[in-house]
């Protein structure tokens, strides 16, 4: 089953994961323990050999030195034996010499040939020659000293008796009859001496002994040559082994080189002993040994140092190895061609390749196809000696890829790259997830329409989302970091904005937020609502304030528009003169009433019954349908539309009622009652007025009409003339066809008919213009006229002066016509003053009663005046002095005035210009009555 397979797969994976991970916890050292121990033993052995060698070498050297020194001593000893024997011989010779001398002396003495003087002579001479001799003495057989030499000696004085020790030798010499040596002794002067006794015999008579006293010291000193004493210390040893004399005691002795020999002749146990002086000092002799020992020690020490150093090295290397093996990151050494040389176990752990198979395989074999180019690029950089760091994907043994970040250092001397790679697959995944997350967040941020703006606790903007940026029309860069006053505060609002910000920072922002104006960069302003909430960071600390900003310009505008619409609606309804009310169709309760309605029916009508309040109102039967039975589906519907009269006030109302749906859905009756009393009257009046106006207008425009009609009339007249004259010409010439003439004459006749029609039209036009005369206030007429002329007057810079006499009686006239005449005269006057200097352009309107029942009106200008010849033709039709005049105005004016039983004439103005005057009859009630009768 696929599910099971999947599960087992997962299991395997998990297991393999553990299996891969497990070795990481085994000390790699432990696996190598036996070999390490062996290596250690070998190392120990290696290290013993130099030590042993050094020691053996030292010993051999010492032995050699010792042997050499022994040999040297032996040589010395032989030399000393020879020398000592030679010295003993020398001494013996000397002593034998002295023996013979003394024996001679003894014989001489015995022979009696020797007297004292002789003795003295000979003895002293001998002593002088042999310094070892101290005294020569002749001792009588009675053991008394007889003669003694040298004569100045103090030891042997004649008469002295021999001492016991001397006696022994004295007697032995007498007994044996031969020279005998006494035992050495120290004489009273402290000097060790040796005495030689030679018996003196004359025949059988013993005559004493000749004694020679040797100074032992002197023997030692003087009987050996100087070279000897330089080489050896020579000592005489007594029979009891005591040293009697030595030749030198200064120099150190080499006791090992000594030689003793018995001294004979004395043969009394005296020993001559020579000890060699130490030819070289002890130190020089020991020097080789010292050197050898010292050097050996030095060597050993250096060896030890070396060893400890090596040990340290080894330990460090071991540590490094351990790190190399333990490292979770891939460590490898690559050849310059990009192949692996050595890899650490991490390689196996991370990628699953056995470490021992890695060497020799190129790195690129493992790189993801997409990363190969980049990796090759990096390898190229490496080959140039540049350390690189890059990321790529590497294939694992199981075919998956892992992201590695490589840091590779080339060592060009070794042609090797040292590479460290860290598995960043997880990080990449995290990054990817983060990127996705951040993209999602950004998308969210950007799609959000609510502006978000964060400030820190000091008020600085630390964040603004795109919606906010759009809102204020500025980029985030412009906003972030900004301190108050912020750039989007409108200048006029800065104090309020600052106040709001202070409140916010104090943490007292209202939960409903602030409503503020926001200044866009383009200068336009919008309304925004700021809701504030504290900004809490990951550690729960507040770092600032986050504001969510909503653009409420549109809602606000809509609301404002609604309000305005409502106000307008109310204003319109309240401004209406019509009374408006809305009442429930069913129960007749008044729901709404406008001001006009309340003004009519009281200000407390809301809630009351409409039927009880409203006046006038249609009877129920007058409605098209009974409003009480209306359903919401039936509305809107017109219920009533007619004019009603309030029986109490007599006013007329236009009442219109309509059923419609009220705001809450129920059916209501909306009634509008408009007071049309005035309108009715007005309509009546204006209808009459209109009628008159039309009539008058026809008359007034007759001037223009006349001009047009004259032109129109000209056409047929000219045509008739042409036809007629053409006919005449042809008939005169005789060259004509009758048909042509006939046609021309018919055309002429037709044109005559046309002319007749035109004239008829004029007559019709005039007939309709009957004036209607009433009592007219001239004051009002002047007012109206000037109202009309005002614009023209200002345009022409003419000042108009009114001079109307007070309490002027009304005239009996057609008001419109009189106005027209007056207007005509005023305009004429203004036109006449076109060439007058501006400050004299004064037009005077005056009116006064000239006699009973007659009012005179005059219009005086200061224009160019009227020439006499013109004055005659002034009122004839079609006369004009104006370039665009029609020549009808004055003519008609005079007609009108004459129709009113008045008169129109002109006079020259004494102040320059012209005065037009006309008279009108005063209205007399009787006359009117008479006329109407």
């Amino acid at each position, binding site marked *: 089953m696929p599910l099971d397979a999947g599960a087992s797969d997962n299991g395997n994976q998990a297991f393999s994961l553990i299996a891969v991970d497990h070795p990481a916890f085994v000390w790699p050292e432990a696996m190598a323990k036996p070999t390490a121990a062996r290596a250690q033993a070998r190392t120990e052995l290696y290290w013993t050999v130099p030590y042993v060698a050094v020691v053996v070498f030292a010993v051999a050297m010492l032995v050699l030195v010792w042997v050499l020194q022994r040999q040297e001593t032996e040589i010395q000893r032989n030399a000393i034996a020879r020398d000592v024997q030679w010295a003993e011989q020398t001494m013996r010779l000397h002593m034998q010499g002295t023996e013979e001398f003394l024996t001679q002396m003894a014989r001489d003495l015995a022979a009696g040939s020797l007297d004292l003087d002789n003795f003295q002579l000979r003895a002293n001479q001998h002593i002088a020659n042999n310094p070892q001799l101290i005294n020569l003495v002749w001792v009588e057989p009675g053991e008394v000293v007889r003669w003694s030499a040298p004569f100045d000696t103090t030891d042997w004085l004649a008469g002295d008796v021999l001492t016991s020790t001397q006696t022994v030798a004295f007697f032995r010499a007498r007994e044996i009859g031969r020279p005998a040596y006494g035992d050495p002794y120290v004489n009273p002067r402290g000097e060790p001496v040796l005495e030689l006794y030679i018996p003196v015999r004359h025949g059988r008579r013993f005559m004493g002994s000749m004694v020679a006293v040797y100074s032992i010291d002197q023997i030692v000193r003087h009987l050996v040559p100087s070279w000897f004493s330089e080489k050896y210390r020579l000592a005489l040893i007594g029979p009891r082994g005591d040293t009697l004399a030595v030749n030198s005691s200064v120099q150190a002795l080499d006791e090992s080189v000594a030689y003793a020999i018995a001294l004979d002749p004395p043969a009394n146990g005296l020993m001559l002993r020579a000890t060699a002086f130490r030819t070289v000092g002890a130190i020089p002799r020991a020097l080789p040994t010292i050197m050898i020992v010292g050097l050996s020690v030095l060597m050993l020490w250096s060896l030890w140092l070396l060893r400890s150093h090596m040990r340290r090295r080894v330990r460090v290397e071991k540590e490094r190895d351990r790190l190399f093996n333990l490292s979770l990151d891939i460590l490898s050494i690559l050849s310059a061609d990009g192949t692996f040389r050595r890899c650490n176990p991490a390689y196996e752990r991370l990628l699953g390749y056995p470490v021992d198979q890695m060497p020799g395989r190129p790195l690129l074999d493992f790189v993801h196809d997409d990363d190969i180019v980049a990796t090759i690029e990096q390898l190229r950089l490496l080959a140039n000696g540049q350390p690189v760091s890059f990321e790529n994907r590497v294939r694992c043994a199981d075919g998956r890829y892992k992201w590695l970040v490589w840091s590779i250092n080339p060592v060009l001397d070794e042609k090797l790259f040292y590479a460290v790679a860290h598995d960043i697959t997880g990080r990449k995944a995290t990054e990817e997830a983060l990127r996705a997350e951040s993209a999602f967040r950004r998308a969210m941020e950007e799609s959000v329409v609510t502006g978000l703006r964060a400030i820190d606790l000091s008020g600085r903007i630390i964040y603004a989302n795109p919606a906010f940026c759009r809102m204020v029309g500025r980029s985030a860069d412009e906003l972030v970091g900004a301190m108050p006053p912020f750039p989007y505060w409108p200048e006029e609002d800065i104090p309020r904005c600052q106040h709001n910000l202070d409140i916010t920072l104090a943490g007292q922002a209202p939960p409903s937020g602030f409503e503020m104006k926001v200044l866009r960069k383009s200068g336009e302003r919008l309304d925004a609502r700021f809701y504030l909430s504290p900004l809490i960071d990951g550690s729960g600390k507040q770092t600032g304030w986050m504001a969510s900003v909503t653009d409420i310009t549109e809602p606000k505008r809509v609301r404002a528009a609604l309000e305005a619409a409502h106000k307008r609606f109310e204003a319109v309804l309240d401004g209406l003169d019509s009374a408006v009310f809305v009442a429930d169709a069913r129960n007749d309760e008044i729901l709404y009433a406008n001001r006009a309605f309340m003004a009519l029916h009281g200000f407390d009508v809301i809630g009351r019954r409409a039927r009880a309040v409203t006046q006038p109102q249609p009877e129920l039967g007058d409605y098209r349908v009974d409003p009480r039975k209306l359903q919401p589906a039936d509305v809107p519907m017109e219920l009533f539309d007619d004019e009603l009269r309030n029986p109490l006030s007599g006013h007329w109302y236009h009442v219109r009622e309509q059923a419609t749906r009220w705001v809450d859905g129920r059916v209501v009756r909306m009634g509008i009652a408009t007071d049309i009393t005035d309108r009715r009257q007005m309509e009546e009046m204006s209808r009459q007025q209109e009628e008159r106006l039309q009539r008058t207008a026809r008359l007034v425009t007759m001037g223009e009409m006349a001009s047009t009609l004259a032109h129109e009339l*000209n056409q047929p007249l*000219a045509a008739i003339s042409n036809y007629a004259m053409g006919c005449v010409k042809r008939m005169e010439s005789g060259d004509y066809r009758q048909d042509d003439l006939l046609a021309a004459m018919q*055309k002429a006749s037709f044109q005559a008919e*046309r002319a007749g029609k035109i004239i008829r039209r004029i007559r019709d036009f005039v007939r309709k213009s009957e004036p209607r005369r009433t009592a007219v206030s001239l004051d009002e007429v002047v007012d109206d006229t000037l109202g009309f002329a005002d614009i023209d007057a200002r345009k022409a810079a003419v000042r108009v002066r009114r001079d109307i006499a007070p309490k002027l009686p009304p005239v009996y006239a057609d008001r419109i016509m009189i106005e027209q005449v007056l207007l005509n005269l005023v305009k004429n006057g203004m036109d006449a003053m076109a060439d007058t200097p501006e400050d004299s352009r004064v037009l005077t309107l005056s009116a006064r009663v000239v006699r009973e029942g007659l009012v005179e009106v005059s219009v005086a200008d200061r224009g160019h005046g009227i020439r006499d010849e013109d004055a005659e033709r002034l009122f004839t039709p079609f006369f004009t002095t104006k370039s665009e005049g029609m020549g009808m105005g004055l003519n008609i004016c005079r007609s009108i005035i004459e129709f009113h039983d008045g008169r129109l004439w002109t006079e020259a103005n004494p102040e320059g210009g012209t005065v037009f005057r006309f008279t009108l009859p005063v209205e007399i009630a009787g006359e009117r009555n008479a006329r109407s009768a």
Partner: protein
Amino acid sequence: MNGTPEAPEQIIYIVDDDEALRDSLVWLLESNRYRVAQFASAEAFLEAYHADMAGCIVLDVRMPGMSGLELYECLRERHATLPVVFITGHGDVPMAVSVLKKGAVDFIEKPFSDRDMLKLIEQCLAAERESRSRVRQDAVVARRLDLLTQREMEVLELIIAGRLNKQIADDLGISIKTVEVHRARVMEKMEANSLAELVQSVMTCEAARGRFVD
């Protein structure tokens, strides 16, 4: 007047919107043996207008659309030399006067007598004929002058100035004989039979006058 055979026939062009008046006028003029062409509006006439038109125009001042006055302005802009007779109604007199000041030949007020009308038309035609023949004459003289060489021109100039042959020779630094030759050539080229004819033809010609101003 002299009615040279090459002169084109003169036609009276009537421009009036009122059919009756136009038709009656045609009738009247045809009765007097004039050739007449009629147009119902100024626009129609402008469309038909060409520079070779000869005769005169009888033009109504008041017309719907383009007025007679506007048509006249248009024609002036095109340097038309046709004389114009305006027909005016009552009240149009001041306007007609202003038109006259601009050089129109004449105007006639409705209703008009046939005599006045015919007289005016005859005047116009005569004036038109004369101006056209003068233009033609000028063209002939100008063409002949163009044939003269520079030297002959100088000689002609001096002849007109009234110099004698001898003086001309001195002025120009040439022999009398040469002057005589040039003079003969000038006479020949200008197709003049006498000295008086030569001077007159040159002096009446606008173009020649222009040349001799300097």
